[in-house]
């Protein structure tokens, strides 16, 4: 944007973490024009990671989740339109049509439409006590069932499912986790780490079953039992379906923009239309670090890509080249992961999988490409740096707890 920036309008579709971060970064970088943030939820931008953790357990209030409360939005002169869907983009006239009939003119448009929870394809999945977990509203609805002595059936042994299981156990509930694959966290880690988490949950009292097939929901209007392929019948006061997310790409698709597992963007987070960018869970970017296209579902991705979009909008194009990291809080344990371990040829363990603190390092051709750590924050932080450097590391040093990982870094790092 040039000298006329003060009269420009940037419209951001999606008031989640990517949209909120883009808006706030535009102001931090000195953009003086109009910013309009359109959200389908009525809430101002809020932090989603605590939803399945502190917010569900009741230790975080709704207010504390807000990144930009109304006063902050006002101060930053960000116009927020909540509770409204963006229906259609008219690229020829550069207009965005909203579900309430409003039409917004834009100079630049940012698609931060996020994703939605994948819905179970099973009759009964629409019943009122079967929940997804994506929003404040989802947790509020679910929480009325999260009471001491009630039974929770959690479908999906991923991060969301296991985090909710941990909270539900702490709340005194009877918890069953059902995973279709042979192990939990199969999409994100190795069997050894999956086994560790399965043990932790079973020790905490979770009835965790892997390799199961769910055949039916019984009970109307509310589901009362979940039936499995092996004939078992599990009582349920509520059911959480934590089976992944689907990116919201329809708006881009209807506008004729390329979509392939997300909205296709270039290394600067631009779509093929020079006036339309995309960021966050909905965007599929070429990742130079991994040499392939990635669509990441993480808060780090939402925020860092949001900042890259803001820079690009202001004519300071930056290449988005992130080394992904993720985390999960379960009971008193913190799992921290950096990099993508797919394709590793050697795993090295530091610490003891039977203890509650260990690190699993993943190497490929001698280089550290990823690490999963539990209760070892130093190892996580230094692994982050080593992975980013594509460092060649000595497996024996990695395995030796007596040698701090820090010592593997060049002095300046």
């Amino acid at each position, binding site marked *: 944007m040039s000298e006329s920036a003060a009269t420009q309008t940037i419209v951001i579709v999606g008031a989640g973490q990517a949209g909120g971060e883009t808006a*706030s970064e535009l*102001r*931090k970088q000195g953009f003086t024009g109009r910013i309009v943030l359109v959200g389908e939820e009525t809430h101002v931008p809020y*932090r989603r*990671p*605590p939803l399945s*953790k*502190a917010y569900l357990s009741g230790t975080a*209030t709704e207010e*504390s989740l*807000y*990144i*930009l*409360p109304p006063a*902050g939005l006002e*101060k*930053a002169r960000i116009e927020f339109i909540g509770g409204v869907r963006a229906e259609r983009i008219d690229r020829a006239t550069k207009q965005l049509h909203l579900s309430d009939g409003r039409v917004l003119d834009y100079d630049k448009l940012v698609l931060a439409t996020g994703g939605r929870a994948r819905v179970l394809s099973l009759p009964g999945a629409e019943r009122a006590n079967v929940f997804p977990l994506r929003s404040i509203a989802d947790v509020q609805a679910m929480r009325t069932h999260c009471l001491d002595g009630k039974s929770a059936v959690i479908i999906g042994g991923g991060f969301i499912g296991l985090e909710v299981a941990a909270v539900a156990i702490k709340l005194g509930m009877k918890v069953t986790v059902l995973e279709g694959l042979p192990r939990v966290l199969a999409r994100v880690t190795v069997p050894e780490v999956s086994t560790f988490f399965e043990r932790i949950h079973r020790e905490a009292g979770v009835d965790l079953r892997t390799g199961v097939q769910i055949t039916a929901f019984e009970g109307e209007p509310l589901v009362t039992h979940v039936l499995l392929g092996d004939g078992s019948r599990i009582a349920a006061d509520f059911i959480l379906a934590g089976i992944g997310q689907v990116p919201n790409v329809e708006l881009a698709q209807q506008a004729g923009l390329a979509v392939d597992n997300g909205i296709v963007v270039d290394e600067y987070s631009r779509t093929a239309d020079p006036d339309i960018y995309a960021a966050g869970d909905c965007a599929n970017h070429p990742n130079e670090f991994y040499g392939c296209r990635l669509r990441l579902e993480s*808060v*780090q991705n939402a*925020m*860092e890509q949001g900042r890259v979009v803001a820079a690009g909008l202001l004519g300071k194009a930056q290449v988005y080249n992130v080394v992904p*990291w993720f*985390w999960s*809080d379960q009971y008193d344990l*913190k799992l*921290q992961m950096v990099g993508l371990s797919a394709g590793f040829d050697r795993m090295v363990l530091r610490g003891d999988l039977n203890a509650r603190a260990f690190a699993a390092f993943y190497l490929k051709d001698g280089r550290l490409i990823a690490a999963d750590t539990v209760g*070892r*924050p*130093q190892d*996580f*932080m*230094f692994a*982050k*740096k080593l992975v980013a450097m594509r460092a060649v590391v000595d497996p024996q040093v990695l395995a030796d707890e007596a040698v701090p990982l*820090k010592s593997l870094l060049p002095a300046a790092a």
Partner: protein
Amino acid sequence: MPTITFLEPDGKAHVVEAQLGLSVMEVATRNDVPGIIGECGGCCTCATCHVYVDADWYGRLESADEMEQGMLEGAVEPGPLSRLSCQIKVTDAIEGLVVSIPAGQL
């Protein structure tokens, strides 16, 4: 409401009113203080809210737990007065708190 001062490395001060019950990180992000990001939302997992606490204040705060200490080791330019601002709660006792933002985070 207590007042907190955030100092940029060049000395520029952001003096803000802090809402009780929030964390110092949340106060910073809600007031667009640069260099404090709070990517993980305040659960001691990313170290992007790292600050140096004013020397007079450091000993008056509750000390960092093991997890926070571990994260701080790998933070940007850590020092003896380093803390993660998400782990410092806003209470009346921190009226006048002064923290500095590490240059490497800007």
